[in-house]
């Protein structure tokens, strides 16, 4: 299936700031609420930014354009929230922070509650990533203690602790069919976990790590992960590349020189990736293929993503956070200036 089209910016920009003198709230991760017109984002703060997608445009000090102004919710007392996710039916929001806690916030009256429903000390170190399973029953977290933990999403009881990364996992993703959880680490490894047994199915070498690890953020393995709507393809973004792997075999099937961020459209064959410049492709899945091998059996350079390139979007340096809405028609792109832009896939 090919979905031709283009990405067009909507007229609204979503902005958040609390007036504190400390610089703009750089976006880090973004999520659409699955059932309501709400957009949430992590923004280098101890709280989560929340906007009404239909909110009124307001004049904002020191900004030329009017913006929809968001609220900062789900407060942790100290540190920054590093990972968060919204329940697939929109019933709750889970947040994990550098304060080591995992917190569950009930979604009521169009927003997360003021106080957490549940709260646990999740990791011995920063909580780096939080993700709900597709059925909503399970939460997975990754911590700076290098472990991946599996929790019951109703009561935050820990069910499993998974080890395998030599450094922390920066991101997690469940395949939409719920069969696999993939963790991507600062060690440059992708680990595919079976969600029935919680055993390692395979480890994929993404690379991109160096001996100084986080000293050079661009050279610190895997930053973001995404799984395709049909659970066949895994995309991983690192400091200098975006790789696509066949989940069934673990083989590299395409690679592009875009970095740091990636998202699959949940309803079709569109893939977006990139930091300051976002590139997007309407990909031809049947043409994903491993690199050719030379006469000695050595794999050659990986192929580009097959299909049609859509419009490239410049969103500014140091910008992170990208996700499609659940209907696949809208794309949210976080920026480093305290804003999120919304694009429509036409």
């Amino acid at each position: 299936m090919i979905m031709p089209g283009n990405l067009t910016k909507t007229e609204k920009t979503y902005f958040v700031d609390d007036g504190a003198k400390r610089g703009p709230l750089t976006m880090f991760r973004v999520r659409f609420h699955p059932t309501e017109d709400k957009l949430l984002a992590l923004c280098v703060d101890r709280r989560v930014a929340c906007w009404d997608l239909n909110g009124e445009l307001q004049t904002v000090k020191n900004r030329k354009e009017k913006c929809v102004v968001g609220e900062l919710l789900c407060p942790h007392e100290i540190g920054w929230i590093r990972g968060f996710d919204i329940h697939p039916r929109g019933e709750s929001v889970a947040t994990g922070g550098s304060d080591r806690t995992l917190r569950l916030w009930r979604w009521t009256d169009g927003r997360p509650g003021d106080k957490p429903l549940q709260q646990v000390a999740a990791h011995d170190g920063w909580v780096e990533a939080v993700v709900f399973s597709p059925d909503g029953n399970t939460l997975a977290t990754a911590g700076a203690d290098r472990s991946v933990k599996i929790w019951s999403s109703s009561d935050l009881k820990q069910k499993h602790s998974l080890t395998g990364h030599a450094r922390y996992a920066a991101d997690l993703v469940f395949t939409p069919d719920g069969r696999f959880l993939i963790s991507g680490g600062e060690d440059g490894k992708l680990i595919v976990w079976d969600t029935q047994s919680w055993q390692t199915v395979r480890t994929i070498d993404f690379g991109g790590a160096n001996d100084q690890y986080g000293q050079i953020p661009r050279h610190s393995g895997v930053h973001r992960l995404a799984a395709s709507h049909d659970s066949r393809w895994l995309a991983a973004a690192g400091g200098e590349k975006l790789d696509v792997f066949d989940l069934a075999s673990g083989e590299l099937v395409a690679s592009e020189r875009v970095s740091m961020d990636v998202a699959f459209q949940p309803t079709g064959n569109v893939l977006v990736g990139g930091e300051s410049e976002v590139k997007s492709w309407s990909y031809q899945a049947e043409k994903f293929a491993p690199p050719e091998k030379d006469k000695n059996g050595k794999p050659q350079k990986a192929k580009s993503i097959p299909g049609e390139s859509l419009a490239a979007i410049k969103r500014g340096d140091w910008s992170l956070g990208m996700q499609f809405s659940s209907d696949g028609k809208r794309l949210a792109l976080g920026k480093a200036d305290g804003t999120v832009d919304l694009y429509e896939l036409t």
Partner: protein
Amino acid sequence: MMDRHSPTCCPRSEHGLSRRALLHGALAGGIAFGGFGRLFADDHAAAAKKNDQRVILVFMSGGPSQFETWDPKPGQPTGGPHISIPTSIPGVHFDEYMPNLSRLANRMVTVRSMTSRNGDHDQGGYIAQTAYNPSAVVVPAPHWLSVCAHEKPATEPGLPSYVMLGRDNFGSMHVPGAGYLGAKYQALHCAGGGAGPQDLPKPSEEAIAAFARREKLRGSFSEAFVAGRDKRLVESHEGSFAQVGNLLRSGDLFDIQQESQRDFDRYGNSQLGRDCLLARRLVERGVPFVRVQHQSGLAWDKHRRAFQSQRWITSEFDTAVGALIDDLVDRGLWSHTLLVLMGEFGRTPEISGQGQPGRNHWTKCWSLSFGGCGLKEGLVIGSTNENGTDLKDRPVTIHDLFCTFYKTLDINPHKELQFENRPIPFVEDKLGTPLAEVF
């Protein structure tokens, strides 16, 4: 005819280099400003009196963030993602990635109210290591450890007085040389990562004999070179060659492979860990002054995406320096070794950086730590306000700091040396006063 590759005959290029080295040393050492003729009024024999005080300076080039080291502000908008942990001083918290330095806070003096004016790396580094603004004198000011080497040279013959471990690849001013003191007080450079001086042959009778043969030949050339010139011009140059000979005879001084696996483990698997281990080895063997560079370049200069990388450098630093303090204490060296942990300035409360999120340069209020050498322990001097945006009390200047360091070493910080008939005090314009609290 002598084989040109014979080990007993050095190629012409070495002599060419020695002349260049002479000129280089002259520029660094002050010949260009009028010569060494009237420089030292002091009696150096007296200066070489018994002296068992040591200094290890671990320099955190780039400007370490006070928020992510000694003055965290968790929960404040300026606090960043790092949280804090309690230290061995009740009510005092350090960064979460400094568990060892938190444990050892009761050994150290922590200054949270450093204040300075120059936010340029090159100039800030110069001021923070010489006690002089770059434009304050017409001659280059010496590194304060060169001053120490001048005042308190190694007592054991053959040992270098001042060794620098690791290179800083930033600007030429960032790591000041011996300035007007001359090449004799320049640091002996080691490449870093636990390595000794570059290209120094393994000590052996053969190496010493080969060196002696080269020296004899080189000496004859130098004699010819000096003829008709001021002999004092080449004295410090000759001293450098003499030091090479001394190093050859110093045996395993720089061989950290002699250290135990336990020590390697506790100092951490990093260049800094190995350099801190070597620093301890050197001061234990009698080298009085050692500067350790934490990573080449401006490793602590976290403008861009600061917080992902900050934790690794803080952790590496904490592991290595924590082990160094433990080791100095364990070996009875702590009571006469001054350990200084500092960079050239601090970082902004704002976290906009040059690539968000990050912190820019900040001189208004920043932190550092020092301890040992008989100073009072477990002190926290000065404080900043709730957000870390301003000093709250007890401002401490660079000049105050150097007065404190020199006083700790029984060196008069306002002592003057004569250069070109000008009196030059160790601390610029005799500014600053020692921190009375630490004595």
